[in-house]
């Protein structure tokens, strides 16, 4: 709870910092705020589970763990916004505050106990995203991305809300535990069709937020138009919060209806894996590839929902937690390097990376670790992320689905290798010959990201069973 209060208060304080007209202060201030929040959040780890606002929010290990991921991700992402600082963007304080506020939404999504809180959390997160998607005001593509995201996101929100309403109609409750009890109550059997349609609409609404197929269409276009920095935020924080919310909803409200929603999720999972991976192969732009890759990772995370075991700990929850963490770190590293390259070479295609290993060995090395992690090669966190999720699904008997996921990750290796080939094995051309200047602070963060990825890959036991 401390994290929500701190983020709200300090977010407003940060907004007022903008009046000081000293943009240099903003980045350190935002990072300090996040550090404080991260610490305050960790402080709750050993505290007993605590409910707030008439049991609308519960801060337990599950919520602390996922809050930890989103705050840490944002913290590690922020240094890559330095160019905004240098360019003296007019509304810088607003953007940082929007990120802090959106984290409040994310935290509500991972700790809600009441569907209204879920809705409010999703909206807080989404509305911030609609704004930041268009933050590159003079760029037509950014405007297009913002509008597209806003229109489609609003529809998705509407659908989600409709789903909540139908579930309320069928069960007479907004509280997750009460819904769970009502679903098992035989007296409500006549309302089952309404409940199922409600669940389906909710799946669609959240599926849109985490860009699971077939509700992924916005993803590549929006990522492409959104400034890289914010695209990275979308593909990590929004997805992590979305999956935590997903898991919470299914575990606490609808375990009794699993006969209905598990086949739906299985179908979504297979489709998402197919579209994400096959789509990524066809891309020429690194940024679009990362967008499709983010779709494909939603597919792997859906495996964790399929492996559902009716509690917020155990194989599936731990698998989703570990995967989200490993994926977020690797994605921040990939987008971070992409942003540095894009800022100075104005290129987002693979060839823009040519010869990077010669000019910037550190950037190339970190990018390589990130790509290997996303591809799920051992020695990186991504390998164990996949391993835990696949294992959880095998344990539940979904062997066919896991085999399909394995085949899809083979496809994944194909496109994750392409940046590595460009960096190490292709010569630089005129445009890519000059080294990219990287600040020492950014270098340090890149090293931290690489080290974290390798630590997760070598000592996964540190966080693999914490929930």
């Amino acid at each position, binding site marked *: 709870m401390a994290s929500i209060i701190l983020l709200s208060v300090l977010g407003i304080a940060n907004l007022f910092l903008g009046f000081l007209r000293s943009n240099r202060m903003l980045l350190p201030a935002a990072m300090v705020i996040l550090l404080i929040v991260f610490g305050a959040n960790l402080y709750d780890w050993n505290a007993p589970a605590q409910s707030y606002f008439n049991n609308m929010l519960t801060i337990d290990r599950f919520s602390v763990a996922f809050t930890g991921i989103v705050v840490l991700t944002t913290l590690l992402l922020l240094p890559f916004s330095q160019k905004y600082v240098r360019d003296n963007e007019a509304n810088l304080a607003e953007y940082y505050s929007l990120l802090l506020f959106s984290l409040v939404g994310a935290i509500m999504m991972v700790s809600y106990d009441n569907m209204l809180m879920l809705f409010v959390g999703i909206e807080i997160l989404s509305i911030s995203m609609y704004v930041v998607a268009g933050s590159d005001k003079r760029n037509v593509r950014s405007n297009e991305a913002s509008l597209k995201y806003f229109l489609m996101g609003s529809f998705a929100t509407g659908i989600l809300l409709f789903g909540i309403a139908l579930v309320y109609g069928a069960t007479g409750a907004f509280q997750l535990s009460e819904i769970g009890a009502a679903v098992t109550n035989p007296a409500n059997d006549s309302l089952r069709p309404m409940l199922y349609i409600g669940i389906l609409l909710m799946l669609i609404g959240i599926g849109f937020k985490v860009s699971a197929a077939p509700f992924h269409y916005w993803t590549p276009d929006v990522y492409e138009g959104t400034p890289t920095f914010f695209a990275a935020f979308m593909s990590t924080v929004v997805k992590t919060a979305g999956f935590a919310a997903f898991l919470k909803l299914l575990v606490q409200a609808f375990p009794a209806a699993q006969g209905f929603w598990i086949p739906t999720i299985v179908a979504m999972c297979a489709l998402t894996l197919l579209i994400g991976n096959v789509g990524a192969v066809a891309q020429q732009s690194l940024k679009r590839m990362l967008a499709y890759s983010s779709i494909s990772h939603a597919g792997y995370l859906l495996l964790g929902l399929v492996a559902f075991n009716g509690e917020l700990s155990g194989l599936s929850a*731990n698998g989703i937690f570990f995967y989200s963490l490993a994926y977020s770190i690797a994605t921040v590293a990939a987008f971070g390097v992409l942003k540095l390259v894009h800022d100075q070479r104005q290129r987002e295609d693979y060839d823009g990376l040519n010869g990077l*290993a010669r000019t910037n060995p550190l950037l190339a090395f970190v990018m390589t670790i990130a790509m*290997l992690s996303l591809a799920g*090669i*051992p*020695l990186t966190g991504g*390998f*164990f992320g996949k*391993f*835990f999720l*696949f*294992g959880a699904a*095998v*344990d539940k008997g979904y*062997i066919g689905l*896991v*085999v399909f996921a*394995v085949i899809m*990750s*083979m496809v994944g*290796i*194909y496109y994750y*290798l392409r940046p590595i*080939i460009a960096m*190490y*094995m*292709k010569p630089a051309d005129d445009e890519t010959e000059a080294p990219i200047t990287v600040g020492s602070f950014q270098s340090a963060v890149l090293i931290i990201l690489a080290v974290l990825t390798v630590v997760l890959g070598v*000592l*996964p*036991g540190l966080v*693999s*069973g914490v929930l």
Partner: protein
Amino acid sequence: MLTALLLFFPLAAALLLHFVKGNAGRVFAFGAALLEFIVAVYAAVTFDASNVGQLEVNLPWIASAGISFHVGMDGLSLLLVLLTTFLAPLILLASFRHDYKNASAFYALVLFMETGLIGVFTSMDAFLFYFFWEVALIPIYFLAGIWGGERRVAVTFKFFLYTIIGSLFMLAGFVYLYYQTGPAANGLAAHTSDLQAFYDLSLTAAEQSWLFWLIFIAFAVKMPIFPFHTWQPDTYTESPAPATMLLSGIMLKMGIYGCLRWLLPITPLGVSQWGWLVMILAVIGIIYGAIIAIRQRDMKRLIAYSSLSHVGLMAAGVFSLTQMGLQGAVVQMLAHGVNVVGMFFIADIIQRRTNTRLIPELGGLTQTTPLLSVSFLVVLLATVALPLTSGFVGEFLLLAGVFQYNNWLGAVAGITIILGAVYLLRMFQRVMLGPATSFTAAFRDLNGAELAVLVPLIFMIFWIGLFPNTFLQMSEPSVIRILSLMQR
């Protein structure tokens, strides 16, 4: 702890190499690899072959999932660790002559690779094994991809995709086996991935039938067995010489070793169901590789195809499931490692001096190069399996094993010796004898550093050829144990 030391010492050296630049880097890398070899020899001297599973280290790794850092050695592991640590310093020494860009990174990758290989040969836990199996792939990918020839990008890409896709099948198989096991010994986790637990599983014939293929494909690609071999000649040709030596000398043994350690004992019923098919594929590979080798004009390609042919024979020996066949495979792994590294090294020397690998452009080297000629002939005759050299013992045992399995297959596989003599002696004749060409007119004989690589190799060729019992005794208890595990 000795095993863990062997495992992590090269890795530590590779990391330290980052801080050692220039000429000191090569000395440091070579020194580290040599020290590693000395430690491995010490391990071998203190080793008691009759006792299974020594030098074990068993620490919890991912305790909540029942996965442990469990390494240890029996005679089979030890022989391959010896091979790896013996060849690594020679491979490093062989690469000194090249003026590689960013040489420290090159040496660091070779040392990194050594860790991966030793990890594969000593892992007693399925996921640790898979982990190192993939880790060994990463350095070779960069070695071949950065320092390779003209077509390196396409070729290494194909190589990486082939091998990793093969490995993913194995991972799927391991995950399935993992969920069949009971609780881990420490009681923390519901399942365990320990090798012994996998051995103890009682799987139905139907399960073993498809598990066999899942696991076998990974090994088949790595060896490589026909028809999973298409990456091999290209990769061998395009990789820089030291990477080719690593690939052919050590890495292809990962596949044979994997069959012995993992495939045969875990899926004996699958092996008895599909072994005939593997035998036929292996024999096809033997003949196919040899016939194509005859037609090659490029020395490196010729050796690559000859390697394909030889590895087919090793696979046939393994799947003959006789003690002779398995022992032959073990000793042939060592012999082939030594021979093929020697062959590729000599090919590399010739290429570096003449700037060509094409056989028709060469000739007449014997007139000016007594040292090279003798070394080449020894290595070549060992590859042809002349008695008293390393190749003979292995091939004899292997063929004897295949004959026990099936006379006809044995007879066909035996042709490999004739064909091998044909293409290898032809190569020697056209490269070394006859009149000198414009490429070879000013050829200098071996220098000290090159001799320093070849002399230990030749020494080993004769040691294996004259006293094979040194090695056969070490592996015998392991081989008997593998066969007895299959009889359950």
